[in-house]
């Protein structure tokens, strides 16, 4: 759409600007403040320069949490994206099945995150949970409280349960936008099922898939509540992801300087990813 140049439009944006500045810029400035200062209690602050940043970047704890989080995000993406595409391809296109699938599949997306954690915490328990009890009855030595591997499996299955539907719904939205004529042409050409997927469906899903990958990466990169409720970051530190570590440091130990420095690094990564997201979106909008 052709847009007219009008700087008075600023007045319409002003309320948003004031509100978000209050809830984003001021807190962020506080973080920046802490990240370059040191304190010995009270309200006495000393200039510390880049000290905290150096400490953070040399801290094993930070890199361990970062590593765990990146591995977690990688596993999540490699499971959820193919699975989501596969399920979307098998969803009905018309009839009563469509609303039923949409509603039932979207349900986990709308459950409060800590309740998702609670559901899986209970579900996986070996004494009262269906999953844990069944696995135990089948002879598996499954216990997510003590075993780091089981804890990881539980957290990953939980995230797959929670968010795969988002990928499904996005892919489905891309699939239904393909006109019937495309499929008829493919049939006339005798295209195989794979060829239809590779040359018709996949290109048409490209845009939604990009959104899905970016959204899933972002959200898994800042996951907090669900693993916190299920495992509390344990056993040991095995499921302590970046956000969990940050909250532990800031609210638990009250190490303001390092926590603030970590927040800034964390935020910069997110900023970079947001920029990728935004560029991708606007490029597509221009092409469209």
């Amino acid at each position, binding site marked *: 759409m052709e847009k007219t140049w009008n700087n008075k439009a600023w007045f319409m944006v002003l309320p948003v600007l004031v509100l978000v500045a209050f809830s984003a810029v001021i807190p962020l400035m*506080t973080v920046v403040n802490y990240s370059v200062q040191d304190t010995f209690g009270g309200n006495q602050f000393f200039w510390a320069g880049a000290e905290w940043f150096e400490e953070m970047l040399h801290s094993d704890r930070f890199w361990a949490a970062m590593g765990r989080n990146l591995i977690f995000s990688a596993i999540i993406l490699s499971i959820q994206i193919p699975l989501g595409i596969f399920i979307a391809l098998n969803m009905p296109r018309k009839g009563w099945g469509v609303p039923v699938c949409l509603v039932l599949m979207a349900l986990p997306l709308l459950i409060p995150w800590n309740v998702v954690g*609670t559901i899986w915490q209970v579900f996986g328990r070996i004494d009262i949970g269906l999953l844990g009890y069944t696995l135990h009855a089948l002879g598996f030595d499954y216990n997510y409280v003590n075993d780091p591997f089981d804890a990881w499996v539980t957290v990953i299955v939980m995230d797959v349960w929670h968010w795969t539907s988002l990928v499904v719904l996005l892919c489905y939205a891309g699939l239904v936008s393909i006109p019937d004529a495309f499929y008829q042409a493919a*049939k006339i050409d005798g295209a195989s099922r794979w060829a239809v997927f590779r040359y018709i469906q996949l290109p048409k899903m490209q845009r939604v898939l990009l959104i899905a990958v970016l959204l899933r990466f972002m959200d898994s990169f800042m996951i907090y509540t669900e693993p916190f409720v299920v495992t509390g970051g344990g056993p040991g530190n095995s499921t302590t992801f970046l956000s969990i570590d940050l909250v532990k440091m800031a609210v638990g130990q009250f190490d303001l300087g390092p926590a603030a420095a970590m927040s800034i690094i964390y935020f910069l990564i997110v900023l970079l990813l947001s920029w990728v997201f935004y560029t991708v*979106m606007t490029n597509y909008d221009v092409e469209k």
Partner: protein
Amino acid sequence: MAGTRDAVVNADKDQMMRNAPAAERTAHGGLADAALARRMRRRGEESRFWWVVPTIYIIFLMLPIYWLINMSFKSNQEILGAFSLWPQNPTLRNYSVIFTDPSWYKGYINSIIYVVMNTVISISVALPAAYAFSRYRFLGDKHLFFWLLTNRMAPPAVFALPFFQLYSAFGLIDTHIAVALAHCLFNVPLAVWILEGFMSGVPKEIDETAYIDGYSFPRFFVKIFVPLIASGIGVAAFFTFMFSWVELLIARTLTTTDAKPIAAIMTRTVSASGMDWGVLAAAGVLTIIPGALVIWFVRNYIAKGFALGRV
């Protein structure tokens, strides 16, 4: 040839099921078309099992939820005692505990108060802003739009502590408005992005026609434009409601007793008291209900809402 006759019969069937042009072409006959019809029929048979994959997936999704509902109707002795797939002695005790104990049901009231406040604030400031973004170019518009997105993507963990100090300084800790304002951090950008997506779908000629007809801007906006994007407002409201409802970290940090959300009350009960599993399950089930109630009305917009209106 039997095969050809088969194909023609099938083509007749096709005529009823498929759209007209394809069926017409098949009915015109010819060997190539017969082969085509056979292939189409095979495709049709393949898709007779379309329900297998979605059904398995939906069962996987429903099992943990079923287990929670199952537990919510059991007494604690039954939960910890015998393992059973459905409640042997169904009881409503867990729900009655929640509805009679103020420390429980107040959690729901608190959550609903700040979530509704947040939804109203987010939508009312996002409406004009989204209109500006969808209709005009102005100084710094793209940077502003991008900056809004970064707030939607920002990790709440980064903001937990500074929020606490900021709202302490204003004396707003443990009030509903504090949580409502804090959730604006991610909900206002979300609402702006979603609404902008919907507004860009409304042709600009409508605005111009209205001005020629002598409508002032506020009157045009309320009388003509808002009804046109009513579904968009509904979707944006739903998503701001939902994201505020599911968020725990910030809501928990900013509240102590008077405005404590149900989500935080649940975590407290898990850690402190002697594990009242039945009540915990019942409380969980009750938090799922708001989403489950409205999901039918937004079913076609779920992907759009999560993708910030970009689908």
